[in-house]
């Protein structure tokens, strides 16, 4: 129908072979010069390179972040923000590939980068973005050094490892108080990638300040690409710990749960401070066995207007998928990009970076007063929540201000779930 209308109108206006050829030529010139049209007037969509681990060991989470990308355009439009032209890049869950894909996207004309879920990959992309002078808005990555390098083009709207830990310990104490009991001895298990190691180092520095009711019996690190975690779980169980303190990814969280069941160990609680345990793939794959783990993670305020809009958009595009950290922070990264582009009035990298630095978004999704960056490019006002898996859904149990239900405590034994 559209084509017919266009064809008819073209005929009506008398398009000749000569004007058609001239049009094609003009289009060719425009297309050819588009990679260099950095400072062109607004109206054209901002080219945003979105780098995510869409394949490899983190593919499940990368694909989940992609859902956040997919639901963004409609919301940006409703907010009166300019359009973004998304250029997808796959980091293949590898630091080296992340670096080369960032270079390639910039070479292909990306005017701003967003990504990349993993701290190691994000560190590599940040180096490229800074070298090339292209703004980079981090969606998810918690390793503190990323925003401690004095970079001028790197911005992070995600809490650092010490911020996550500080909130996690505070929210855990709230949960223990509400439950009326707390574990005395825990075992800390973490992936040995950049994020896991940053969290492990952070625990040593942050935990003593919170006077936690438990001590860590043993710290067990493991490869995030591990195919078998039976030894790790056997070792953890042998410590006699009452609860598991976890920093994991998705595949390993599923492997660990299976091993807990097989080795007949139902701890009092699984206290996660990273991804994995609340992901939809975890909930769907494990069914009843997915109930109970508590995740103390960057989350969304269900009472905010934009949160409801985002929830609605996700439910429409992906029915049955729970809104989670991956969608929220990927959406907010793109929101920051569109907001900055609107205020900068240009795709010039320096103007864009200056506009991002001056960001002040109060109508956000994440918990906290909104989105603002300090001199290092870090949003320091973000708050976390304690969430629990309940019947395939996620409920917020802490902090009190954002909670929508009470915690179920302790973890229901795996052998009593029917």
């Amino acid at each position: 129908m559209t084509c017919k209308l266009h064809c008819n109108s073209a005929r009506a206006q008398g398009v000749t072979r000569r004007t058609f050829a001239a049009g094609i030529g003009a289009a060719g010139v425009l297309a050819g010069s588009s990679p260099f049209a950095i400072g062109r007037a607004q109206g054209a969509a901002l080219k945003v390179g979105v780098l995510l681990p869409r394949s490899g060991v983190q593919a499940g989470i990368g694909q989940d972040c992609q859902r956040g990308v997919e639901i963004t355009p409609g919301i940006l439009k409703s907010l009166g923000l300019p359009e973004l032209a998304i250029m997808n890049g796959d980091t293949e869950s590898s630091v080296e590939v992340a670096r080369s894909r960032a270079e390639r996207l910039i070479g292909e004309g990306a005017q701003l980068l967003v990504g990349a879920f993993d701290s190691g990959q994000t560190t590599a992309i940040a180096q490229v973005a800074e070298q090339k002078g292209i703004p980079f808005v981090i969606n998810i990555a918690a390793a503190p050094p990323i925003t401690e390098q004095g970079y001028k083009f790197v911005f992070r709207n995600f809490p650092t490892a010490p911020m996550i830990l500080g909130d996690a310990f505070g929210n855990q104490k709230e949960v223990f108080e509400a439950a009326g009991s707390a574990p005395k001895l825990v075992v800390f298990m973490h992936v040995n990638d950049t994020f896991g190691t940053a969290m492990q180092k952070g625990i040593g520095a942050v935990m003593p300040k919170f006077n936690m009711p438990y001590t860590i019996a043993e710290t067990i690190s493991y490869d995030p690409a591990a195919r078998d975690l039976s030894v790790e779980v056997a070792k953890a169980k042998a410590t006699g710990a009452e609860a598991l303190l976890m920093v994991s990814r998705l595949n390993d969280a599923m492997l660990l749960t299976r091993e807990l069941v097989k080795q007949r160990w139902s701890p009092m609680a699984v206290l996660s401070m990273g991804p994995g345990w609340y992901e939809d793939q975890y909930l769907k794959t494990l069914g009843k066995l997915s109930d109970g783990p508590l995740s103390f993670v960057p989350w969304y305020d269900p009472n905010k207007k934009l949160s409801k809009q985002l929830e609605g958009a996700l439910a429409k595009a992906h029915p049955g998928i729970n809104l989670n950290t991956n969608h929220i922070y990927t959406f907010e990264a793109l929101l920051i990009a569109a907001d900055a582009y609107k205020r900068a009035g240009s795709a010039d990298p320096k103007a864009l970076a200056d506009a991002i630095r001056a960001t002040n978004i109060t109508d956000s999704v994440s918990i906290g007063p909104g989105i603002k960056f300090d001199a290092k490019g870090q949003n320091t006002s973000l708050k976390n929540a304690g969430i629990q898996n309940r019947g395939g859904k996620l409920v917020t149990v802490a902090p009190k201000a954002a909670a929508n239900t009470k915690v179920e405590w302790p973890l229901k034994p795996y052998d009593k779930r029917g």
Partner: protein
Amino acid sequence: MPAEIYLNVAVSGLLTGLVYGLMALGLSVVFGVVRVVNFAHGEMMTIAMYLAIELFSAFKLDPLVMMVPIAAVLFALGYIMQLGLINPFINRPEHSQFMLLVAVALIVVNGLLIVFGPDAQSVQTRYAFDSFLLGPLIVDATKIYAGIAAVAVAAVLFAFFRFTLVGKAIRACADNYAGALVVGLDVKRLYALTFGLGAACVGAAGAMMVLLVDVTPQLGPAYTLLAFVIVITGGLGSMPGALLGGVLIGLTEALGGLLFTPSAKSMFAFGLLVLVLLFRPQGILGKRPA
């Protein structure tokens, strides 16, 4: 640490090692006879794993029951590959064979990625979460079933090579290529049969492995490397060596992870490989080259 935990971990490592051994057996059989190193070995196993997952999700067919049909499909694939693709490369330089099979591996990984996507997939059999309580031991039911099946398949393969005429003919090709030609054996067809048998082994191992690990297309290269470590440790070309190598690697990974740090499990497996290369380069059960 309680003493029974060492026993628990050792049993788990032993059972996993048996499946590793069966997987590596295919590689060893092919090299021992055809003298071609299959660099797409792990990738062929992932094909078998996806077949098992598809059969389970479509018809709820248990991977252990489907082990034989899956092995048969892989046999056909291996037979055709050898006949149509690898036989023309038999007398070419080793680097040509290497490039050919690496190309096959890349095609398989990316083909699986296109068809099945990058997400990890698994089967949830009714016994997926079962374990047996044997005194102080808690043994994973799937590992026991997979371990027993691995021993059974290996025994059938040993018997085939030892007691059947075709098996003896294949061994004759491996022992003396020129002699086999002189007595009128159809060496190319026997090579194809051997490659098919190697692929069938890896098919059976894939059907078992899908009970133990989640499958992604990227799993292939990791298992190709693991199969190499096992066959070099056990002795390249030696069938009992492959099984022994698998068990040793399984045990080393498990106990190394328990006694030191789990994140360094692979380091111990490679450490064992280095020791074998230093002190017995032909592998534990391998023959010293004449």
